[in-house]
Each structure stands twice: as C-alpha cells, then as structure tokens.
C-alpha cells in the first residue's frame, strides 16, 4: 500500500469507513509530514492535538456506527478563518497573538462533519497578494522546482499559498482557501491541484477575516475534483449570521458528479487571448479545448467585451472595500498596539497601523481611501461599480450561447520568489483570467491540465452560471479524466 499521505479526501474517508486503516494512523502520518516540511513555511500554527482528537473521535464513531461525512479526514485551514482558541492572523503582524473566542462558520461546519485541523495555513497578508510574498510571516515555498537543475524557490501563488503548498506537498489531503480575485484558483494552478470558488453566498463569510466583502468567498482546495465536491458540500450552507449568505439547500455535488459533457456547449472567450502570454499557456488551453471536444462537448467561440476592464475595476473596488474593512485594526480591541509616549488616540492609531501593516496592505488601503475620498468617489468608485455591472451583463448574455467557459487559470506558470515583487501592476496581472468571474460572483474552478517546458503545472479554469457548481465540477471532472496528470513534486524538503 502507498503512504497514507498519498491519499486524498475520498480515499481517506472510505478507507476509515471500511477499516483499511484507522483515522489515528492517518492523522499521525499527516502530522509527521507537517513536522518534516517546516522549510516550506506553509503553516503559521500547527495543531496536531486538534487533528489527533478528531481522529480518535472518528475511530470511536466507526466503532459505534456513527461516522460523519468527513470523519477521519485531517485538513489545513487558511489563516483567514477565525479558529477558536487558535491564533488567527490573516498573514498579518497586526493580528499576531490574536486567539478568537469564536469559530468561523465554515471551519465549524467542517469540524461538525468530523474533520480535524492540522494547523493554520500561511497566506498573503489579508489575502492581498498573488505570490505569498506579502505574508508577515515570510513567503511560502512551492514544493515544485523548475526542471532546469536550478533550485530557485518558486512561489505557490497567492493568496492561498500555504493552502496550495500543503496539498501539493502531501501535508494535508484537503484545505480551505478563500478567493477574492483568484486566490483559490491561481495558487491551485501554480501547484497542480484543484480548487473551486463557489457562487458568491454559498459559503458563509462569518468569521472569515474580511478583505473585500462583495467579492470574498471561501472554497476548498484538494487533489482532485471529487475531493473538492466532498469538502464544498460540508463547507457550504445558509448562515443567518452572514447577510449575503444564500438561503438555499446544499446540493449533493459528490453523489451527482458526472463527467458526461456530451451536448454541453463550452464557450471560448476570444478576449482571453491576450498578448504577452507564453505560448505554452495557449498550448495547454488548446489541448483542453480538444479534450472537451473529444468528450462530446460542443465548442463555441464567444465574446465578453468588457473583459479588459475587469482588472482595473477590481483594483478600485477591492481596495475601496478593504480600506473600510481594515479600519477595525486600530490597536483597541484586538491585535497589536503601538502607543507613542505621551501620544494621543490618533497617534496610537497611526503608529499601530504603520507598524502592523505591510507595504502592500498599506498601498491598497491608501488607494481605497483615495478612490472613496470626497471629489473622487464618482469618478473612481461609482464608475467601477457601473463597469462591474457591465462585466456581469457580459456573462449573463454569454449563457445564451454556452453552458460553461473554458479559459487558462493564470497567464503563466509559477514564477520565482522575488521575480515580480518590484512592480505591483505586473503582480496584479496574475489574476487577469480569474477576476472577471469574481466580479460577477460566478462559480469557477481550476483544474491541473498540463505541464510547461520546465515541468511546472499549468491549470485551466471552468466558469459556470450562478449556482451551477454541479456543472462546473462535472466539466472539470471531464477535463481531469482526460488530462490524466500524474506528475508530482519530488520530496526535497
């Protein structure tokens, strides 16, 4: 039998149920793997006691015939989710030492379903970043290396970079991520795993540290489509504590999974063919199109005319919402406080925030403050909200012509740490393909689809209609079956 850490969510759940191994053995194997991988910097806190206690409960549940949907599955939790009694920092030094007295709805749902927690996963500070380099706790390193013999440390993407590395390096079979403008999908693509952002409102935002509330959405990241379906079923659901939570039953995504896409229409948006994207990204996209055609889907060229305005729209709306959300970090109620000698209250606010926030977070708060300030609100923020409506309208219209969209997830494979950190806009361009679906609140998944010339994974994205997670998962499964990727990073850490 292969190592227990090679198993995914479904295999662990089934193996525990069938008695092939105990949940305790599984938890111990992953706890051990986490302890040996500290060089990757994927975890900000390790919680082996939580994972082991949940495993013992799972073994007891099996004995008494009361197994739950995720009994015996140890997970990693992105550090954006408030976890009761366990440090929650959102990757920021301003929250160092913050131990919430409550549990986020999504993590509580996962634990109620029997899952345990291996630890909290490192991330870009307040989820603002695409490379994990903005984390206040140091960058996460990808387990992948270029096939050029050089050992340049690569980014796992961001902001859910710790989540991505944990799954790719077999430190956890599944993890939570959050996606505001690509933060699940881009890192999933960079490390060759699967990640889905569901429709806005499927997963409660309660207890998730807020970045841009009209965009933030939680989702799972795991080794394959089925594992994502299992996790999403446990994470999603109506929550009266989140005013934007959708009051709808959670579909049985796993039971209804089907890779039969015969007769489905797959739209290829022509505006996603942009200049400067490496040839290998296009090649993998073409291969994905061919695979879907082979699977019996009909390929149609479609147009989303406002695509090129999505990124600038996002970089007005997200910082604007962030500048408001992050006003709460004032050194009064939680987190760090810096109080200058003989200073007044304002001095304390300003010193606390100067010391606690990193450069990218400050930059975005400043942009957000500017676009919301008197005299500029209409020109920037209101204009962006109107363009956002046009971007959403593009999608509404395109659904008359197709059922899903198939696009690259990111415009490149993973890059080396330090390669793009000098130019904020070059970094923002990472999310050029991910942001439109975020602005429209649509479900979107990234599936590993191929390797580039240096042996690094590339992902493809499938976007669907609002609430059609099932269709998105099904189309992703069709792609996964045909891509048949088996490459994995060699354990060097």
């Amino acid at each position: 039998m292969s190592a227990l850490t090679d198993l995914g969510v479904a295999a662990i759940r089934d193996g525990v149920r069938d008695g092939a191994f105990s949940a305790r053995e599984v938890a111990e194997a992953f706890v051990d793997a986490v302890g040996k991988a500290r060089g990757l910097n994927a975890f900000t806190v390790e919680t082996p006691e939580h994972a082991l206690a949940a495993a013992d409960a799972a073994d007891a549940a099996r004995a008494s015939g009361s197994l739950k949907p995720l009994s015996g599955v140890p997970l990693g939790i992105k550090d954006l989710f408030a976890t009761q009694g366990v440090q929650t920092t959102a990757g920021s030094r301003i929250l160092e030492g913050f131990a919430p007295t409550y549990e986020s709805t999504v993590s509580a749902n996962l634990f109620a379903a029997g899952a345990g927690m291996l630890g909290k996963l490192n991330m870009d500070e307040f989820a603002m970043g695409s490379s994990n380099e903005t984390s206040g706790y140091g960058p996460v390193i990808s387990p992948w290396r270029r096939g050029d013999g050089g050992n340049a440390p690569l980014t796992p993407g961001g902001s859910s970079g710790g989540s991505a590395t944990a799954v790719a390096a077999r430190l956890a079979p599944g993890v939570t991520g959050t996606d505001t403008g690509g933060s699940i999908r881009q890192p999933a693509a960079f490390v060759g795993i699967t990640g889905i952002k569901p429709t806005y409102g499927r997963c409660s935002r309660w207890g998730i540290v807020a970045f841009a509330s009209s965009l933030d959405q939680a989702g799972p990241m795991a080794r394959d489509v089925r594992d994502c379906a299992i996790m999403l079923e446990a994470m999603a659901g109506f929550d009266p504590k989140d005013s934007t939570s959708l009051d709808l039953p959670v579909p049985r995504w796993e039971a209804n999974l089907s890779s039969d896409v015969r007769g489905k229409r797959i739209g290829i948006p022509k505006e996603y063919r942009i200049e400067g994207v490496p040839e290998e990204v296009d090649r993998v996209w073409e291969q994905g199109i061919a695979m879907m055609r082979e699977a019996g889907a009909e390929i149609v060229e479609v147009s989303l005319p406002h695509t090129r305005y999505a990124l600038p729209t996002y970089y007005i709306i997200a910082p604007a919402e962030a500048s408001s959300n992050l006003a709460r970090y004032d050194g009064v109620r939680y987190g760090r406080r810096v109080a200058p000698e003989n200073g007044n209250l304002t001095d304390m606010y300003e010193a606390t925030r100067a010391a606690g926030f990193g450069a990218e977070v400050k930059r975005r708060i400043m942009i957000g403050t500017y676009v919301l300030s008197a005299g500029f609100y209409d020109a920037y923020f209101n204009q962006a909200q109107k363009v956002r409506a046009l971007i959403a309208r593009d999608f509404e219209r395109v659904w008359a012509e197709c059922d899903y969209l198939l696009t690259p997830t990111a415009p490149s494979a993973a890059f080396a740490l330090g390669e793009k950190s000098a130019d904020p806009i070059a970094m923002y361009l990472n999310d050029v393909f991910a942001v439109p679906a975020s602005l429209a609140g649509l479900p979107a998944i990234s599936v590993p689809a191929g390797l580039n010339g240096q042996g690094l994974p590339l992902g493809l994205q499938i976007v669907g209609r609002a609430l059609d997670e099932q269709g998105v998962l099904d189309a992703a499964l069709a792609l996964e079956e045909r891509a048949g990727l088996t490459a994995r990073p060699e354990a060097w850490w």
Partner: protein
Amino acid sequence: MSVDAATVRHIARLARIAITDAEVEALAPELNNILGWVEQLQEVDVAGVEPMTAVIPNGLRLREDAVTDGGIRDRVLANAPAAEHGFFAVPKVIE
C-alpha cells in the same frame, strides 16, 4: 490627475497610517502608476447603467427585533491589548 506628496500625506492621515518622508516619496509614484492604470475605466460608456451593489440577487432578511446575543463581556475583551474595569482602555482623549 496626479498625486503629489501633500496628497499622499492627506490620504495617509485619512487612513490613520503614520508615514515617513521616505515612504511619501516612494508612495507618490506608486499610487500614480496604479491610479493611471485604473484611469482607463473612464473610456467605458456607462450611460444608463446602475452601479452594481449585489452580484447575486438576494434580499436582505428581516428578523424579530430581539436580543439574540450578549452577556459575553469577558470574551469580547479577551484579545484587547489593554482592558481595564471591563472596558477597552485607550490613551486619554479628554484634556
């Protein structure tokens, strides 16, 4: 429009972030770059378009006007950098 040093200081003041002169110098061109880049939205014809406020149609729910939470003062104060006598403590604000 262009963001000068005085504007950077003004925004930082609004955002309650203390910044040094060196940071002002670095931030002015960075903010100008980003604002120049988002400026392209001005070319989009938005005549008759309502600003988007909700991505998925979802009305706000009403509930009974009743207390559903509370009585957890110590938990609320548990993470405060300074809490005294059951209150959040801050530097003196009244002279």
